[in-house]
C-alpha cells in the first residue's frame, strides 16, 4: 500500500507561470515530505529541479519559491514563519530567507504548502494566491512605491483589509539592488525576508508583491501536539524574558561587553560602553518603544514599535540587533534617532540592513584609507550620521555612489584597488552578520562553510556565547556542522529560531523528534530528524557545487578575520589564521563525508537519499 501524506500537509505545490498566468499543481510525494519536511527543504528541491545551473540569478529561469512547514497553523509555538528560496544575486548560490508575520499561516490554510514563481511577467504585476490558485494582476500605479505603502495599496485593491497578507518589494527590489529584501506588513507585526536578495529576484521578475488570502484548510496533527507544546511553555517564556521586553536589540550591550561586537568596520570589536548604551535595547526601550508586536501563534512578542518624533517616525519597526551592528556600531554612528531613521528607511525602501550596513562601513574604511574620496561620495567619514540616511536613499535609487553600494561590498571591492579586499567582511559574496568571525571559533568555520555565505542562521552563535566552541577549535567543526543541521531542520519546520532555541533546545534533540512524530504520525528518532537537517544542508551544498560556487577555495574567510587579531578588549588576540581554518575544514569535510575539495561524495549522496536530486542538479 502506498504511503499517504500526513494530514498536517495541504499536499500541493502551486506553480505559477508569470508570463502567461497559467497555474500548475504538483502533488507532494509523501516520500519527499519525509525527506525534506517543508520550508527550506521544499524550496531547495524546487530550485534544484527548476533552475539550470548556469542561469543568472536575474534570468527568468531563476525561480522564487515560497514554502511553509508541516506545523504552520498548528498549536506548535511559533511555527509561523515562511521561507523564500531562490538563487541569490549576492552569492550566485542557493539561498533561503525566512520571515514571520501572518502570511505563512494564511498560505497554509490555502492548502498549498508552497508557491513557485517561474519566468517573468510582461507588465509590472503582483500575484494573488488563494485556495483556488494564483492570479497575476497588474501593479499599475505601484511603480516606485515603498514596501509598507505597497502592502496597504494591495490590501485596498483586494478589498478585504488585513485578510490579504502581503509580502512586498520596495524601490530597491525594483531597481535590483542585489540585497533588496521583501517586507510583509501584517495586522500583528512586520516580517522581513531580509537576506540574499529575494526582493531583487522578485524585481527581476517584474513582480511587486505576493498577496495571500487564506482558505479553509486546517492541518490536523496525528497526536496531541498541543499538549506537547504546552509542556515547553514555562521554559520558553522564562528564557525569552529579554526578547519579550527589549526584542533582539537587548543583545547590543551584552555582546559589546564580551568584546565581540564589530566596531568601525571590524577594526575593533568593542565600542565605548557609553556609545553602545546609546543604541542599546535598554535605551530604545526607555526612549522610543511604544508597543509590542508579534507573529501569529507566538506569546513571546519580540517585535516592537518605536516612535521618533524628530524623525517623523510613528510606530516604526524597531531595529533588530543585527541591524544595529550594521547601521550603528560598524559605522561609529551612535545617534539612536538617526539610526532608527536609517533602519526605517531601509525597511520602507526594501533593503537588507546587514548587507547594506556592512557595505557602507566597508566604503567608509576605503575612504579612510584613501581608496575612495569626496569625488566618489560625500558623507563617507566614520560617524557621519546624516550620511547614513542619505546613502540609504541613494542606494535604493541607485543614484550616484548609491549605484556602487547597491552591488554589495564584494563587487564594490572589485572596482577599487586590491588593497580594498583587506577591509571586506563576508564570505561567498554575502556580508557577515553581527556574530564575530574572529571572536567565536564556531562562527569562523560556520561562516566559511555556510551555504548562504555570511549567515548567522547556518551555524548558530547561541551556544558559543555560553562558552561552547567559542575559544577552541577542538570538536568545533563537528559542532558547526551539527548546528547547521539544527538550523536546516528548524527552517524546514519554519519555526522561529528564538522560540526553538529557548523553548526546545539549541541542538537537535528528542523533543523535536517527539513533536514532529506527533504532528505527522511518523515514528521518528532524534537521529532521523537530524538526518532531515543534514539532507537539506547537503542538497543546498550540491546546488552550490553544481553552480561552481562551493568548494575548498570558496570556503574561506576575509583577510582581516584570518590575519588581524582583535586588537583590544576581552577578546583581544582572537582570530582565525589560514592554517587554523584549513585544519578545521579538513575535520569538517571528513565529518560530513565530503571530499578534500568540499564536495559531497557519492556515498554521502546515497546515504542521505539524495541521488535523484543530485542527478538533476548536475544536468
Amino acid at each position, binding site marked *: 500500500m502506498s504511503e499517504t501524506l500526513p494530514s498536517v500537509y495541504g499536499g500541493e505545490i502551486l506553480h505559477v507561470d508569470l508570463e502567461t498566468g497559467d497555474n500548475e499543481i504538483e502533488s507532494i510525494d509523501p516520500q519527499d515530505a519525509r525527506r525534506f519536511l517543508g520550508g527550506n527543504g521544499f524550496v531547495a528541491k524546487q530550485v534544484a529541479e527548476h533552475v539550470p545551473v548556469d542561469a543568472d540569478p536575474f534570468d527568468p529561469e531563476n525561480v522564487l519559491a515560497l514554502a511553509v512547514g508541516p506545523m504552520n497553523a498548528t498549536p506548535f509555538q511559533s511555527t509561523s514563519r515562511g521561507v523564500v528560496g531562490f538563487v541569490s544575486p549576492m552569492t550566485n548560490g542557493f539561498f533561503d530567507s525566512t520571515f514571520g508575520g501572518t502570511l505563512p499561516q494564511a498560505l497554509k490554510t490555502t492548502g498549498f504548502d508552497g508557491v513557485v514563481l517561474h519566468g517573468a511577467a510582461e507588465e509590472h504585476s503582483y500575484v494573488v494566491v488563494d485556495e483556488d490558485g494564483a492570479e497575476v494582476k497588474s501593479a499599475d500605479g505601484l511603480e516606485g512605491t515603498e514596501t509598507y505603502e505597497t502592502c496597504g495599496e494591495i490590501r485596498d485593491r483586494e478589498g478585504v483589509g488585513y485578510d490579504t497578507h502581503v509580502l512586498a518589494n520596495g524601490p530597491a527590489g525594483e531597481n535590483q539592488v542585489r540585497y533588496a529584501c521583501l517586507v510583509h506588513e501584517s495586522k500583528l507585526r512586520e516580517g522581513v525576508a531580509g537576506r540574499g536578495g529575494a526582493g531583487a529576484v522578485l524585481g527581476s521578475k517584474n513582480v511587486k508583491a505576493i498577496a495571500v488570502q487564506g482558505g479553509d484548510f486546517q492541518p490536523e496533527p496525528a497526536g496531541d501536539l498541543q499538549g506537547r507544546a504546552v509542556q515547553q511553555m514555562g521554559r520558553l517564556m522564562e528564557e525569552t524574558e529579554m526578547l519579550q521586553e527589549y526584542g533582539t536589540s537587548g543583545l547590543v550591550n*551584552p555582546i559589546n*561587553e564580551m*568584546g565581540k561586537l564589530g566596531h568601525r568596520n571590524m577594526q575593533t570589536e568593542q565600542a565605548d560602553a557609553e556609545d553602545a548604551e546609546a543604541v542599546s535595547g535598554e535605551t530604545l526601550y526607555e526612549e522610543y518603544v511604544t508597543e509590542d508586536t508579534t507573529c501569529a501563534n507566538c506569546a513571546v512578542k519580540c517585535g516592537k514599535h518605536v516612535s521618533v518624533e524628530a524623525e517623523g517616525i510613528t510606530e516604526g519597526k524597531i531595529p533588530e540587533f543585527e541591524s544595529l551592528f550594521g547601521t550603528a556600531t560598524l559605522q561609529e554612528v551612535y545617534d539612536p534617532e538617526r539610526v532608527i531613521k536609517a533602519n526605517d528607511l531601509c525597511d520602507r525602501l526594501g533593503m537588507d540592513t546587514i548587507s547594506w550596513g556592512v557595505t557602507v562601513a566597508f566604503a567608509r574604511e576605503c575612504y579612510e584609507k584613501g581608496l575612495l574620496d569626496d569625488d566618489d561620495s560625500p558623507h563617507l567619514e566614520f560617524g557621519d550620521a546624516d550620511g547614513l540616511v542619505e546613502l540609504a536613499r541613494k542606494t535604493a535609487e541607485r543614484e550616484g555612489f548609491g549605484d556602487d553600494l547597491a552591488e554589495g561590498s564584494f563587487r564594490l571591492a572589485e572596482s577599487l584597488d586590491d588593497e580594498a579586499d583587506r577591509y571586506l567582511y563576508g564570505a561567498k559574496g554575502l556580508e557577515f552578520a553581527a556574530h564575530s568571525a574572529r571572536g567565536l571559533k564556531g562562527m569562523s568555520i560556520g561562516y566559511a562553510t555556510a551555504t548562504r555565505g555570511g549567515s*548567522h542562521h547556518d551555524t548558530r*552563535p*547561541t551556544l558559543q*556565547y*555560553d562558552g561552547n566552541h567559542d575559544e577552541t577549535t577542538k570538536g568545533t567543526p563537528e559542532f558547526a556542522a551539527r548546528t547547521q543541521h539544527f538550523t536546516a531542520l528548524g527552517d524546514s519546520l519554519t519555526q522561529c529560531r528564538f522560540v526553538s*532555541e529557548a523553548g526546545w533546545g539549541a541542538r537537535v534533540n528528542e523533543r523535536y523528534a517527539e513533536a514532529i512524530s506527533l504532528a505527522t504520525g511518523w515514528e521518528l528518532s532524534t537521529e532521523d530528524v537530524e538526518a532531515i537537517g543534514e539532507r537539506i544542508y547537503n542538497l543546498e551544498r550540491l546546488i552550490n557545487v553544481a553552480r561552481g560556487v562551493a568548494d575548498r577555495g570558496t570556503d574561506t574567510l576575509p583577510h582581516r578575520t584570518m590575519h588581524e587579531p582583535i586588537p583590544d578588549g*576581552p577578546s583581544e588576540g582572537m582570530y582565525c589564521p589560514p592554517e587554523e581554518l584549513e585544519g578545521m575544514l579538513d575535520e569538517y569535510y571528513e565529518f560530513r563525508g565530503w571530499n578534500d575539495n568540499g564536495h559531497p561524495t557519492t556515498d554521502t549522496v546515497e546515504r542521505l537519499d539524495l541521488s535523484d536530486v543530485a542527478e538533476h542538479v548536475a544536468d
Partner: protein
Amino acid sequence: MELELRYFAMIREAVGERTTTREFDSGTTVRDVLATLEDDHPDLEGTLLANDGAVARSITVLRNGTNVTHFEGGATELADGDTLSITPPVTGG
C-alpha cells in the same frame, strides 16, 4: 576588595542602577555576589542562582568580559578590580 558590577536589561530594572562599585571580602566568588544581589533586591530573588547554587540559566555572567563558564562558573573566585557584568542570556540575533 573592590568590584565593579554592571547590570543590563531586567537585572538593571530590578537593581535600579547601571553600574555600582562595591566592597567585598577577599575570596568572594561569583555565587557570593549573586546571592548578595538577591538579598539586596527582592525582585531578583530566585532569578540569579539556581537551586544547586549554579548561575541561573536565565542570566549570563561575564568576568571582565569573559563568560564565567570559562572559569569555574558560580565558584569563580574574583579579584580586586574585577568587573562583573550580569546580563540576560546571550543568544544569536
